[in-house]
């Protein structure tokens, strides 16, 4: 096995434990571990022979400090690459990112595939959440997974032709004939969406009853957007269910391949659309890692402050809708009043409400306005009493408790097997918060606690988020009290857009400014990855640069995707009202599932 060091900044992750892990693997698998790639992802990236893939995955899962979670699985179309440093030759690469919660480390496996032979063994037997990821890879790239139980399209309609994330698939709708819908076409599309129980291995009846198949969604008040779930019912009891997603697929990953590094930022806002600048954070962190930018202390602190403010507004939306799904009409009016107060601060600082796109590569769009601290302090002073009230009125309310206690409960092992992260994982009592475990953007300087649940049920998921809001308020208070002085942008040639004062000094700086604003910055060919503890769980951006002004591949790992996938297992044997309570307690938005 050889390690390449083509990029001097690229650190091979061969430090201590990771190194011994890679060594142990290479001892065991020898030539089947083809190569270790040096990247900026901060984890060992190993190329594995297709034949050995399942065995390597198995070994990693069984190892001490096991890689319990399949964090991400997707692919890259490599056919148009110009600067691929490392062999082996590949038309398509499929990558498996594993996360070890117990060891707090990651590893990425890559498999090279040839255009004529696009198939892989399915890992769904090893990691249960591989099921949907593999369906997504099939849908987006046309790579087959052998042994997969139901390899259907997941994001695109069943009538779609082609695989959108292939480089030869058109990106724009306007490259195509304008959309038309005829009466006949409408009927055909609706027929194609019709649920076929046999295709999912479901029986229509047993010896006692004939099951009812209930179609919940794609438009249902409790489905939180365009989400569909088909229920197999025996009376009120759910025998089985099949979530159907893809009604909110906005092609954000394909969009990343045609926007400049800079102009993709507004698209990140709309991934988890109630998370605002929280979505910018993992993206700009990953780009900064590629560019080698060190951000100033002030910019880092402002980022944390705004991200935490959005965590509060997102959790408030969660709380209102969660309680409304349980049948309580008024809380949503109260939480939206609080949200309005939050938006007043957000708007004063960023100039926008929901999608500020306010973070920049190398810093922020602008400095904090004069008087921000007064506004922010008002909000911070307003919240605690409200949170206490929600707790008293709703979470201590016997109706809410009866509806949510021990409903859709799961334990830590189950959560990890399904790729559940964020508050939903912590509700099971698992202490894994990236802000503590792998502090980024200066979280190590803050004093806050990570609230944990016990039962992992719908109640704990609600209660825990109230507690999280308290901690966010604490963090924001510390930001107000100790906001560092200094620049809001890093002094680096790739900071985009570059500081304006500098452009007016010299023709060279003027040209640089012009090019960066019109074409965008050119980032060195490499790969980087960044994960943050977003509002709904761990959000990760895995960027591949081919040395251009645009990303070659932008992989967006969102937390809500695996959260929905877990649903059938939890709901079997439950009742329909439990499903609604569970749907409310997951806290998902469909853009965060389908991207």
């Amino acid at each position: 096995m050889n390690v390449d060091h083509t990029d001097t900044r690229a650190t091979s992750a061969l430090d201590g434990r990771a190194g011994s892990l890679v060594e142990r693997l290479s001892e065991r698998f020898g030539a089947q571990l083809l190569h270790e790639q040096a990247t900026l992802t901060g984890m060992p990236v190993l190329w594995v022979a297709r034949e050995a893939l399942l065995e390597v995955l198995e070994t990693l899962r069984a190892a001490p400090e096991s890689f319990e979670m399949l964090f991400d699985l997707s692919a890259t179309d490599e056919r148009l690459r110009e600067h691929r440093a490392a062999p082996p030759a590949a038309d398509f690469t499929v990558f498996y990112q594993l996360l070890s919660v117990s060891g707090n480390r990651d590893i990425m496996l890559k498999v090279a595939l040839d255009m004529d032979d696009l198939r892989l063994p399915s890992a769904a037997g090893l990691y249960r959440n591989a099921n949907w990821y593999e369906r997504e890879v099939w849908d987006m790239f046309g790579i087959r997974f052998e042994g997969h139980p139901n390899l259907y399209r997941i994001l695109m309609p069943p009538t779609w032709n082609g695989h959108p994330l292939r480089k030869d698939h058109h990106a724009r709708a306007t490259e195509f004939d304008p959309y038309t819908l005829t009466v006949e076409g409408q009927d055909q599309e609706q027929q194609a969406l019709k649920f076929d129980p046999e295709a999912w291995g479901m029986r229509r009846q047993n010896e006692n009853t004939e099951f009812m198949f209930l179609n919940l969604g794609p438009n249902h008040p409790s489905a939180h957007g365009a989400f569909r779930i088909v229920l197999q019912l025996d009376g009120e009891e759910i025998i089985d269910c099949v979530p159907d997603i893809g009604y909110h697929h906005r092609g954000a990953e394909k969009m990343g391949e045609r926007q400049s590094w800079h102009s993709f930022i507004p698209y990140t806002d709309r991934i988890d659309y109630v998370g605002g600048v929280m979505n910018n954070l993992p993206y700009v962190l990953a780009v900064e890692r590629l560019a080698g930018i060190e951000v100033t202390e002030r910019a880092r602190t402002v980022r944390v402050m705004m991200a935490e403010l959005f965590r509060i507004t997102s959790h408030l939306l969660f709380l209102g809708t969660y309680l409304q799904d349980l049948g309580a009409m008024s809380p949503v009016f109260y939480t939206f009043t609080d949200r309005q107060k939050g938006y007043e601060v957000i708007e004063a600082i960023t100039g926008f409400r929901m999608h500020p796109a306010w973070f920049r590569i190398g810093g922020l769009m602008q400095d904090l306005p004069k008087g921000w601290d007064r506004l922010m302090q008002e909000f911070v002073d307003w919240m605690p009493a409200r949170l206490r009230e929600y707790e008293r009125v709703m979470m201590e309310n016997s109706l809410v408790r009866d509806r949510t206690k021990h409903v859709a409960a799961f334990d830590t092992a189950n959560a990890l097997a399904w790729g559940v992260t964020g508050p939903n994982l912590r509700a099971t009592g698992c202490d894994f918060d990236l802000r503590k475990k792998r502090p980024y953007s200066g979280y190590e300087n803050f004093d806050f606690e990570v609230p944990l649940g016990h039962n992992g049920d719908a109640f704990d998921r609600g209660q825990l988020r109230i507690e999280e809001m308290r901690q966010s308020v604490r963090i924001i208070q510390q930001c107000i009290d100790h906001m560092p002085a200094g620049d809001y942008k890093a002094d680096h040639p790739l900071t985009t857009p570059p500081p304006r004062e500098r452009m007016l000094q010299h023709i060279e700086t003027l040209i640089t400014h012009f090019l960066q604003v019109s074409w965008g910055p050119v980032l060195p060919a490499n790969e980087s990855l960044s994960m943050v503890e977003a509002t709904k769980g761990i959000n990760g951006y895995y960027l591949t640069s081919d040395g251009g002004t645009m990303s070659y591949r932008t992989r967006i790992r969102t937390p809500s995707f695996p959260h929905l996938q877990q649903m059938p297992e939890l709901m079997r044997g439950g009742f329909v009202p439990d499903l609604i309570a569970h749907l409310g307690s997951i806290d998902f938005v469909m853009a965060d599932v389908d991207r």
Partner: protein
Amino acid sequence: MTYTLTRADDAVAEEARYPLEKRQHVADPMREQVHRSVFTGKLEEVLNSTVNWGRKHSLWPYNFGLSCCYVEMTSAFTAPHDIARFGAEVIRASPRQADFMVIAGTCFVKMAPVIQQLYDQMLEPKWVISMGSCANSGGMYDIYSVVQGVDKFLPVDVYVPGCPPRPEVFLQGLQLLQDSIQEERRPLSWVVGDQGVYRAEMPSQRERNRERRIQATQLRTPDSV
């Protein structure tokens, strides 16, 4: 004021494209009535505006959301913006009980047939507000999975700009819809008069406000709150 006349068609061909109804520009039908007979003309005018007044102040929205815009729409429904001031707070979960549908969010290729189905399930009189850039034109999502504007298959009455529009903008859109409903001419009964639907062609807000808007030269600085 000129009107758009829409007549329902019973026989629908398989290859017919949505939106189905035939539309044509006509003059205000009421004017003709008035010239025909002063008394019945006046009576119909009074009846019409009374019915329209009732309709526009009790619009029941359909609880339908696609993406980000729906969050701002919900903001408009809750206490700080309070849509009840305009008589439109009775959110219906069934299209059959709703008067208007807000396409709040991106219209996806996979979702379009579903939206059409839901629209068809609504009963006349019904209206459509297209909320946000995605629903208006595709907006920043010129991408394979997004329909470039919901008006590719639905008849839209009001376009609300923004990404997403603020709740206030949505409320203004609702008021514009109310203004247009006041000017509508619909059959008062299935036995009274012409059975077509006459929609007023309302003036464009851009043209109406352009003069005033370009007067603004002093914008507030973002450097202080």
